[in-house]
């Protein structure tokens, strides 16, 4: 026993014990009831604890994520299906809206021109070799479409004339075709001329009102309409708005540059006027 007491190991143990007991007493005595040792150790261990708790939380989240993964996948699929469904409905809605708009315009035109018999049509193609962009529509002889019937778009703007009719389709020569010549007049000044186009104007979707007097009163902003002469086109179909007036270099007349109010490249629906008062013989090569 004496030997044991004299060993260095025992002495160290006693010192440590005393040290801790003192610390414990100091802790009991102190206000915050913590020993200086636990404070010192805590200072060292706390960041480590934070790190381990962070990792632990991470594992917890991961495990919950793994657990919820299947449920989430189901939810995502459900939501995706819902989105798909809504997108389809949106497309249907947009199409119906466009149709309604077209039919509204159609009825407006019918109200305005009671003598018109109109056949709505969809643009289905174009002639690739025709630089003036002749278009193909899905209505033909079967639907009562005839050669030289005028074609308008929803806003009552003249698009062109039927130049070829098949059983279930027709080809339209647009007003951007230099072969199409339309007797027309400007509504303010009542000056008459004929609307046609040239290669360069057609490239920029423009037409011209040719055959005007040198000292024409037509000015920018004037509206050019069909005059109804020639019996191919009914009177007062809008051709476009005057952009500027120029002198014709070839003779002593002037001409006005006209901007039609439709974009040929975006044309989807047109209306073929199959009958109107005063409809007669064709000017298109007949």
């Amino acid at each position, binding site marked *: 026993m004496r030997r044991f007491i004299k060993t260095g190991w025992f002495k160290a143990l006693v010192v440590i014990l005393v040290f801790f007991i003192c610390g414990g007493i100091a802790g009991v005595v102190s206000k915050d009831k913590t020993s200086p040792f636990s404070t010192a150790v805590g200072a060292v261990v706390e960041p480590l604890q934070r790190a381990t708790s962070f990792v632990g939380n991470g594992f917890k989240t991961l495990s919950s994520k793994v657990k919820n993964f299947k449920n989430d996948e189901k939810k995502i699929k459900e939501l995706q299906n819902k989105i798909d469904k809504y997108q389809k409905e949106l497309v249907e809605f947009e199409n119906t809206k466009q149709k309604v708009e077209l039919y509204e315009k159609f009825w407006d035109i019918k109200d305005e021109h009671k003598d018109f018999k109109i056949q709505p049509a969809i643009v289905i193609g*174009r002639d690739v070799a025709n*630089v003036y962009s002749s278009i193909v529509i899905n209505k033909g002889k079967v639907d009562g479409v005839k050669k030289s019937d005028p074609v308008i778009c929803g806003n009552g703007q003249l698009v062109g004339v039927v130049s070829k009719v098949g059983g279930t389709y027709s080809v339209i020569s647009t007003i951007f075709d230099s*072969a199409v010549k339309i007797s027309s007049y400007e509504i303010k000044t009542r000056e008459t001329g004929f609307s046609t186009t040239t290669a360069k104007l057609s490239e920029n979707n423009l037409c011209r009102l040719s055959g005007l007097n040198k000292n024409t009163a037509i000015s920018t902003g004037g509206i050019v309409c069909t005059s109804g002469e020639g019996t191919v086109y009914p009177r007062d179909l809008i051709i476009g708005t005057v952009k500027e007036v120029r002198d014709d270099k070839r003779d002593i007349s002037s001409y006005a540059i006209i901007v039609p109010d439709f974009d040929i490249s975006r044309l989807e629906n047109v209306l073929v006027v199959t009958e109107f008062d005063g409809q007669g013989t064709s000017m298109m090569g007949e």
Partner: protein
Amino acid sequence: MKKEYLHVYIRRCMLVLFILIVAMIQNTAHMFPTIFGARAFLLIPVVVCISMFEKNISSTLYGAFAGLLWDISSGASSGFNTIILLLISTTCGFLINYLMRNNMVTATLLTSFALILYNFIYWMAFVFPVDKEGCVYLLLRFYLPSCAYSLALMPPIYILIRHFLKRLRRKFPVQRRLTRNK
């Protein structure tokens, strides 16, 4: 159905279908891109390439079929495209069967010839009489660039047709001589 006939039927059906699809692409707005206003006359290289691999009569018929499809959407006089494409395909068929070799160089030559011929005749018949003032402008601005654009699309068409016919021949070998001997 005999195997030797199967080759012919599949070949004809596929080529007709190919012409049909190309015609749809060509004649529908926004289906094929235009480059600086130049458009691709896809049916011309297709007809030339097909007639290079076909016998005289069948190449003529393929040309006529392609022309008919083009005529549906064309504002030009009825039958213009049919006649021109028929002539082009017949000429190409004859040249390949009797005079020329069937390779990419020949295909380029024949397609350029066909494109220039078609566009020049179209321009002379439908553009020049109507718009004498702007006809030269249109020739330089639209018809010649369209020729170049269409010609640039010929190699993939030629390779596609050659590849398809080669594979078909490998899968369903034609036993013409054997049938005759029988």
